Structures are given as C-alpha cells and as structure tokens.
C-alpha cells in the first residue's frame, strides 16, 4: 500500500513509444519535476497528450516527442511556446490538433472505457480535415444530426502534480481550478503523481476531503517533489517564475541554447535545480499570476 517512488523510479516504469498524458494547463500546475526526470532519461518516441505549456516545449526541445496531441501550447505571459514552435515548424513530430473540448471529451471517453463520444466541436473546421482518422456519426433519432465521433484518448500513463498526497495515493488539489487532471487519471492505465507535501496517511476533515480530485485506485506511484511544478505555478502554494520562463524561452534563440539550459538546470538533478532557482525562499516570493 506504500506507493512512494523516487522520480527516477517512476520514470523507469515508462517505456519508449508510450502515450503519456500530462496534467495541468499551459503554465499552470505542470508536473515539471517528472518532466525533467524524463529529460534525464533515455525515454523516447513518446506520444504526448497535453493542454500544453513548457512541459510540451521541453520534451520537444529534447526530441522526445514522436507525436503531439494538443489543443494549444502556450505559457500565457509568453504566448508562443518557443520549442513547440520549432518542432512544429520543422515538421519534427506528428500532430493531432484538437479543439479543447474535443480533447476533454477524448479523455472522458477513455476513462469510461468507450471508443468514442460524440460532439459538435470540430465539425466544419480543419480539425476534421487535418485528422483524416476522425469520423462522424449520425444521431439514430429523428433529428439525424451528424456529430464528430471523438475517439478515446487512451493513455498508457498520466503525470499529475498535486498540492498534497499520502503514500496510499490519496491526493488533494487546493487551487482555484483542478483543470482536467481527474480525466487524465481516469484515462490512464497508470497515474504517477508528484506532490508538494507527502503524508503517511490522510486523516481529513470533510471540507478538505472534498479537495480530493480522483480515487487512489487510479494512482500507481507517488513522488515527493517539492516545487515540482516550477517554473509553472501551483495555486495557492507558489506563483510562476517569470524570470525562469524567460530564461527558458531565450534558450530557443541562442546557439546551443537548449544544451546550455539542460546543462545548467536539468542534468545536475533535482536538488541542484531547486538550489539554482533559489529554493523554497525564492518560491515563497513568486507571485501568483494576476490575469
């Protein structure tokens, strides 16, 4: 019943060619410690499914992405994700570009173990035209309406960052929005959670228990990773690190920029990373973004 793993142990359970869902949304609550661990690993040929932010960008920069399933990739304050753009513009990966709602619907279908769910979203656009594998389906009732049949986005594994977890795999999300992480967890054969705070075993009051986003039977591994969402932000614990995001963004315009970024922030390991970004003291000063 103890699901605690190191980040390296969790990543060692992933395989080349897997379909990997990554929770969060753009620059919000991305499981970056696990992403960095993948960057340190030999893992390759991944199909990445993400409401993308720097998680997608970094995996693209490292050449780990064989196929990207996405609706957008952005860091909000820096709208254009530099390494995603490079990969996209150099045709370095296959893509399945979806409407945000189709994307949700695909995860939901997978969590229900269904092959598809119908939706109006995507009809009459190039999402349909550019994804020739997508099919439509007609209502069997009198209306006869034709819907897009969004296929299930089944995941081999999902990576999710949470505010708090226990060793059994129970989790809490305390931010204003939980995004769609519960759907990633349901869509995946195995969910790996990284967490700011790790407890032995939860003993919650009712109000706190409501912050539990999905059931522990979905969780295969729990990784203790303080500041594990950095440089993205984790409400209410810490804000985004705009200095770091700019540093990362600049790596795309420098010669050998990615190699330098990796050498400085990724290769030395996570404790070095935390020291370099200024540790908990600096994290405490990172402001929540104001929109």
């Amino acid at each position: 019943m103890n699901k605690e793993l190191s980040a390296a142990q969790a990543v060692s359970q992933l395989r080349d060619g897997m379909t990997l869902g990554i929770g969060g949304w753009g620059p919000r609550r991305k499981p970056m410690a696990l992403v960095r661990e993948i960057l340190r690993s030999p893992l390759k040929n991944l199909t990445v499914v993400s409401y993308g932010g720097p998680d997608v960008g970094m995996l693209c920069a490292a050449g780990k992405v064989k196929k990207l399933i996405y609706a957008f990739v952005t860091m909000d304050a820096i709208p254009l994700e530099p390494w995603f753009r490079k990969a996209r513009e150099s045709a370095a990966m296959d893509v399945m570009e979806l409407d945000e709602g189709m994307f949700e619907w695909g995860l939901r279908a997978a969590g229900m173990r269904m092959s598809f769910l119908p939706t109006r979203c995507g009809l009459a656009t190039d999402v349909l035209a550019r994804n020739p594998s997508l099919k439509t389906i007609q209502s069997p009732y009198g209306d006869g309406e034709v819907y897009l049949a969004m296929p299930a986005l089944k995941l081999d594994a999902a990576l999710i960052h949470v505010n708090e977890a226990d060793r059994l795999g129970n989790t809490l999300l305390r931010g204003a929005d939980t995004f769609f992480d519960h759907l990633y967890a349901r869509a995946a054969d195995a969910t790996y959670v990284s967490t700011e705070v790790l407890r032995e075993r939860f003993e919650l009051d009712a109000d706190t228990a409501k912050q539990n986003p999905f059931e522990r039977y979905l969780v295969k591994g729990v990784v203790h990773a303080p500041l594990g969402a950095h440089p993205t932000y984790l409400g209410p614990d810490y804000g985004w690190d705009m200095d770091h995001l700019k540093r990362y963004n600049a790596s795309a315009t420098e010669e050998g920029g990615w190699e330098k970024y990796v050498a400085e922030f990724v290769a030395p390991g996570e404790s070095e990373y935390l020291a370099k970004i200024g540790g908990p003291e600096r994290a405490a000063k990172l402001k929540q973004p104001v929109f």
Partner: protein
Amino acid sequence: MTENEVVSLAELMIVAASEAWRDNGEILASGIGVIPRIGASLAKLTHSPELLMTDSEAFLVSEPVPLGARGDYQPKYEGYLSFERVFECVWGGKRHAMIGPTQIDRWGQTNLSSVGPYDKPKSAILGVRGLPGNSINHINSMIVPNHGPRVFVSGEVDMVSGVGYKPERWAPGMKQDFVDIRLVVTDLCVMDFGGPDHAPRVKSLHPGVSFEQVQAATGFPLLQAPGMGETPMPTAGQLAVIRRMDPHNLRALQLKGNPPAVRTAAAA
C-alpha cells in the same frame, strides 16, 4: 484627462467592442485580451449589467476585475466557473467571446493555429484552442488591432480553427444553427457578416477612415451596411469607466504608437 486629453483609437475600439455584448441577455461575456476585456467590462458596467464575467481564472465576479496589478482590490465573487464548467457553458451556448484571431476570411472562418502549409507551417501559433467548439456553439466576435490583408486573407484561412458560413464546410446533418458571428472590431472599422448569404460588410468607419481604405486593407470584397456611419467616439462617462477598469493604461500598448481615435490624413 491629465496627461493626454486626446481620446485614443484603443479607447474608441473598446467602446465599439462593448457594443457586441448589448442585448445578449444573461450570458457569459468573455473578452480575451486587453481591448475585448475592457470592452466587456464596459458593457457590464453600463448597458448590460446582467452579463456574467469571471476573474479570468475560476470565479464569477459581480463586478468586472480591473486589469493588471490590483493593489488592495478584492474581486467580488458571486459564483464559480472552472475551466471544465466553461466548456459546459460553451456547449450550452451561454457565452459570447471576443478574441483576436491570426487570420479571418470572407466566410467568417478564423485561424489561431498555424500559417503556411499545415504539415510544415511557416509559423506555428497557439493551436486551434477552443475555437472549433466556441464558434459552433455560441456567439463570437473578433478584435483586429492591425487591419490588413495578412489578417483578412483573400482566400480561405490556412487552418480553419473557428467555423464560419462557408457552405462547402457543412456536410448534410451538421448543425449550423448556433453559429453567430457578431462584430469584428478593427483599428479601421467595425464589420459584421450581415450581408446577403452572410457576406462581410462594414457597419461603421472609425473617424478619418474611408471605406476605400478599409477595402484596400482587406483581402476580400466588402459591402457597406445600410446606414454605415462613423464609429461613435467614447463619451466622458465611458472613458471614466475605461480608466477605472484599466488603471495601468495597458490599452495604450495595444496599438502601435497608441494612435488617437480621430486620425489625421497623415496618420491614416
């Protein structure tokens, strides 16, 4: 008006944008970006108090939240609207969003995904985001800060992200009933798709702009809407609300050189 007595073009566009949400009823007003957001705020604070707005994160607010650093200001929460619920709002049709697409074509189709050949684009942008679902489900308007033929393309947009009125795109049985493109507010004029067969037309010209000038900057033919006049200047009351909603004057950064609302011949 202390430092600058001159009404800016951005302010005129904000007022024009706010008109998009008039008489929409009780729906979610989503103005994405500085001008649309101030426009939606202005709508709610003046002609359409029934509109719902969020804090741009997960909460519904009873009073529009001013842009940028807030100091002591506390958003006035009246409800909750997580991203997951926004999708339900979209699918239920209870929303009117205004965004700034990269390309727009004569059929009202929009592109936010990529420019150039799809397989190896010249420029990858954000992705289609929620445009396919938004455009087929609820009212949408657009903001264009740089009216020109690169935005208003002569053919079809490179990657149709938001649907429009092009008949060939609609196979039998696909429900087009909810498609409703309202206003396109640019730095030259206000347009809509209210002509015959949803043909694009100019509803009003900004002060000092001619129809010919707009046509020359547009990759497809435009009609003149009946009664096409001049886009109204902001009133003092509207300007006061705009200043309150945008205390850091972010609107001044939205158009290159922050031009005045009334163009001189040289400015045009």
